[in-house]
């Protein structure tokens, strides 16, 4: 119980009348890598967005490091300091340089000095293999580089958990692997990760747990070995056959 980094218990959410999340139960232990897949509209992004409270759930409990998420701004602040997020569309700040993108959070939210923040930023830019782009604007970088900057930006906040919401879906095919490589390295270094993705090669390589969602429910959950070779549900089998065909 105490080692659970993230715990979702009976989480429900509605967008108006639309029931997007139905009784989601999910535990992510420290150091664990969980990959969530499923057809579009299945609610997988919403799960991740609820974990860091970009969306509010209406029923059930979400605990991050044992702290339950409530409307209390303090609990949201706790989450934001422990949980990093990487978006499908990168969401880099276009008016700032790469370095400024990375130092904004540490300086303004963490109170680091500019020098400390820049040291940290350069360290993480190195980690994502783009040490020499610090003074460029995001728009001058390729999609793959932008997403790696976004990962470095999250890492600068030194989160305990990193959430990825379809991090490679907006990328040109030839840039996907450079982003996945960085993610694999992070996984190998022991980062706790929740990844929404259709990259099954990546999932096979790093996942400790696979989750398949459909129509707002967790339909199947299991170790990747069983998950890929012997899915239990018909829906999951069909989905896997569709995306693994090519």
């Amino acid at each position, binding site marked *: 119980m105490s080692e659970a980094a993230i715990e979702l218990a009976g989480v429900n959410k509605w967008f108006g009348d639309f029931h997007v999340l139905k009784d989601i139960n999910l535990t992510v232990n420290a150091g664990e890598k969980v990959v969530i897949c499923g057809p579009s509209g299945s609610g997988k992004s919403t799960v991740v967005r609820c974990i860091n409270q970009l969306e509010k759930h209406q029923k059930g409990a979400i605990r991050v490091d044992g702290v339950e998420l409530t409307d209390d701004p303090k609990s949201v602040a706790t989450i934001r300091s422990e949980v990093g997020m990487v978006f499908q569309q990168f969401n880099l*700040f276009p008016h700032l340089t790469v370095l400024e993108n990375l130092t904004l959070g540490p300086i303004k939210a963490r109170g680091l000095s500019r020098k400390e923040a820049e040291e940290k930023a350069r360290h993480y830019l190195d980690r994502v293999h783009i040490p020499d782009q610090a003074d460029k604007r995001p728009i001058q970088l390729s999609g793959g580089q932008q997403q790696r900057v976004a990962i470095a930006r999250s890492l600068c906040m030194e989160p305990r958990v990193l959430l990825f919401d379809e991090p490679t879906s907006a990328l040109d095919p030839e840039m996907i692997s450079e982003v996945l490589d960085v993610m694999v390295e992070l996984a190998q270094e022991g980062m706790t990760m929740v990844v929404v993705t259709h990259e099954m090669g990546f999932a096979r390589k790093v996942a400790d747990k696979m989750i398949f969602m459909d129509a707002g429910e967790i339909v199947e959950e299991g170790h990747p070995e069983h998950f890929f070779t012997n899915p239990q549900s018909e829906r999951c089998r069909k989905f896997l056959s569709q995306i693994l065909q090519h």
Partner: protein
Amino acid sequence: MKKLLLIVPLLLLAGCSSSQTWGWYVIDPTTQSGWTNVKFLISGMWATIQISLIAAVLSIVLGLMVALPGLSEKRGWRWVNRIYVEFVRAIPLLPMLFWVFYGLPIVFQSMGLNIPIDPFWGAIITLAISDSAFTAEIYRAGIQSIARGQREAAQTIGLNYVQTMRYVILPQAIRRILPPLANQFIYIVKMSAFASVIGMQELTRRANELVVTEYRPLEIYTLLIFEYLILVLIISAGVRWLERRMGADERG
């Protein structure tokens, strides 16, 4: 544009020569009395500029304060914004000017406050409030045009609301907000003419006063129109310069 600028005065001059209805001597700068009149008319310029500038600055501040609740997720805050915008936007400038200049001091008095409102501040307050409903809408549109992902990214790196606005949203929105805001300044300059009816010695008031003594409305009001035209053309040039600079910045 340049052609038009030439044609209009030429037409007026032509009218001058072909009939008795023109009497340009009134504002002929080559004669002593004409020059005195022109100086008298132009002397209202500074007041017009002052009123417009101060009102614009106040409107820019007030507009942002009105716009932000309109972007809140909480319905109550959005209502505050809607009511202000709809209410203020619905009041014609002249009645509002009368209310502020003649009515507001009475409200102050009944509250035990002795705050006199002179024509200068009466005009500024009215223009600023009236314009703020429009600037608020400009801000709202500009801020809403920044993708939601920007706000979300700012939140996930721990920035609070004020920091998100200050460091992420407004620096991006300002490029889209500034040009329409500058356009709004033109509106203020023109509407400042209403200040003449509460006795403010600005461009229009000066023209009115001269008309009363010289009985030459056609010539004097023609000059008045050109005074506003020149002011507005200068602002327009400024706006275009601003847009070019912003555009260059965006590309760079």
